[in-house]
């Protein structure tokens, strides 16, 4: 780790992944801030996982699977594309991807904000448990599958089977939805929804987008209770 004007630089060309993650986790359990920069990530998996401190981490380049997984409090920016399951199980903090994200972005995340400036692949926000996800481009098929809480905002289009078996996550899509999954329906956009959407867009850096152009999707809540007419199927 070399110090450059208060920013600690970790070069994965000469630092192994475990040592790099240990450095990134060095403030864990404290309230201390630090600014760290990772260069040459070369698509490595599980980079900057398990951070539990309000630190700023910038990753210059494309990352592999599980980047920023389990994040708590940190602000992590990937300047490039992220592989599968970026920010999976995030608890709090902010993760930003300036390029595209692969499948299962933000899977099971409980809190915090995930911003993907480009497109997200399939199963974005699968089983989401309370985090907010804002995607500047499109999201792939089966996104928000069984998503339970939190909000997902998509400035582009959504793929097939959006929100299949959805619980209480609120989904806002500006573009086209290829198809809705089982029990996911379009819902009325009321003032309270335009209000929270405007706030989310502003926070995520998409303040120029007009909330009036979005549609809201949510659970029809028909799968919540067992339908006695289906008893013959069991």
């Amino acid at each position: 780790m070399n110090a450059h004007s208060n920013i600690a630089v970790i070069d994965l060309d000469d630092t192994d992944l475990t040592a790099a993650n240990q450095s990134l986790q060095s403030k864990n359990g404290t309230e201390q801030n630090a600014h760290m920069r990772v260069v040459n990530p070369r698509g490595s998996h599980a980079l900057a996982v398990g951070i539990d401190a309000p630190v700023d981490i910038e990753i210059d380049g494309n990352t592999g699977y599980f980047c920023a997984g389990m994040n708590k409090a940190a602000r992590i920016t990937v300047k490039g594309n992220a592989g599968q399951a970026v920010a999976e199980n995030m608890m709090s903090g902010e993760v930003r991807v300036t390029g595209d994200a692969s499948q299962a972005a933000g899977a099971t995340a409980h809190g915090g904000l995930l911003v993907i400036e480009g497109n997200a692949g399939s199963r974005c926000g699968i089983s989401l448990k309370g985090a907010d996800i804002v995607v500047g481009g499109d999201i792939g098929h089966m996104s928000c599958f069984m998503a339970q809480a939190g909000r997902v905002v998509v400035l582009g289009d959504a793929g097939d089977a959006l929100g299949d078996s959805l619980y209480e996550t609120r989904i806002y899509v500006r573009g086209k939805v290829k198809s809705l999954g089982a029990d996911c329906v379009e819902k009325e956009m009321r003032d309270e929804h335009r209000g929270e959407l405007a706030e989310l867009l502003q926070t995520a850096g998409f303040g120029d987008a007009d909330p009036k152009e979005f549609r809201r999707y949510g659970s029809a809540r028909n799968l919540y209770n067992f339908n006695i007419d289906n008893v013959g199927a069991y």
Partner: protein
Amino acid sequence: MCGIVGLYLKNSEFENRFGELFEPMLVAMTDRGEDSAGVAVYHDAVADGFTKFTVYHPDTGFNWEAVCDRMRSDLNATVRDAANDTHVVIETDGDAAASRDLIEGFDPQIQIMSVGSAIEIYKEMDTPQAVADRFELAKMSATHGVGHTRMATESAVTTDGSHPFSTGPDLCLVHNGSLSNHNRLRRDLTQHHDMTIRTKCDTEVAAAYVSHRLAEGRSLREALDDCLGALDGFYTFVAGTRDGFAVLRDPIACKPAVLAETDDYVAFASEYRAFVDLPGIENARVWEPEPAVVYSWGGEA
């Protein structure tokens, strides 16, 4: 798991460097499968009237000259051979079917890995790096090629159960996933369509299905499109023909896939890590192929 890589050159100036670009891609996928590894490369197409075979024997000291001499005398054919570890490339102007029967019948441990005009297949039960070293992959030139690192699920870890699979002239297929209807399809292809399937591996059934469709006049793109209706299960496929290269993911698309394209090449991999040493990758268009969509380059597509 399993790892797949593919590289299709658009700029012929890279052909002499194919192996040095391709080896790091294959080795980067070591974590996805260390049971066996293999590559199919397309280069040095034989002249019209000639057939190129890649043939395997477990004994690296096997006397291939004896096979070639028999082909010369029995088939009155011109025969050239170049041994490479456990594999040999045999080129002949003899009748292709008769040559095949003679080679296969020569020794019970002989297996024909590929038949065609440009294709060569090299695969072994070893780590990707060891396989690359054994066959001197880094020195190979090619127009395009595919590679596979295997974590076996559907059949035993053997050399002939390794990928790529070739089931028809110049065709090869690699697969990440598992098929659930391969037994029924195997029966159908072998009993009703005269296809030969040599192993218990599900991937060879998929390769045979693609060969069968190609033989019926479908293009590579169309044959892969047909897979969407015929195959049940999980798959990411990369297929090669003499001048074509194609990618297909199943409609659920659980198995990972990433493509990169520049003016010089198209690269495929299970993970982005495989691309990091490619020239110009920082400015390449990088994207995930959509589920149930065939992507193809070259060929008749």
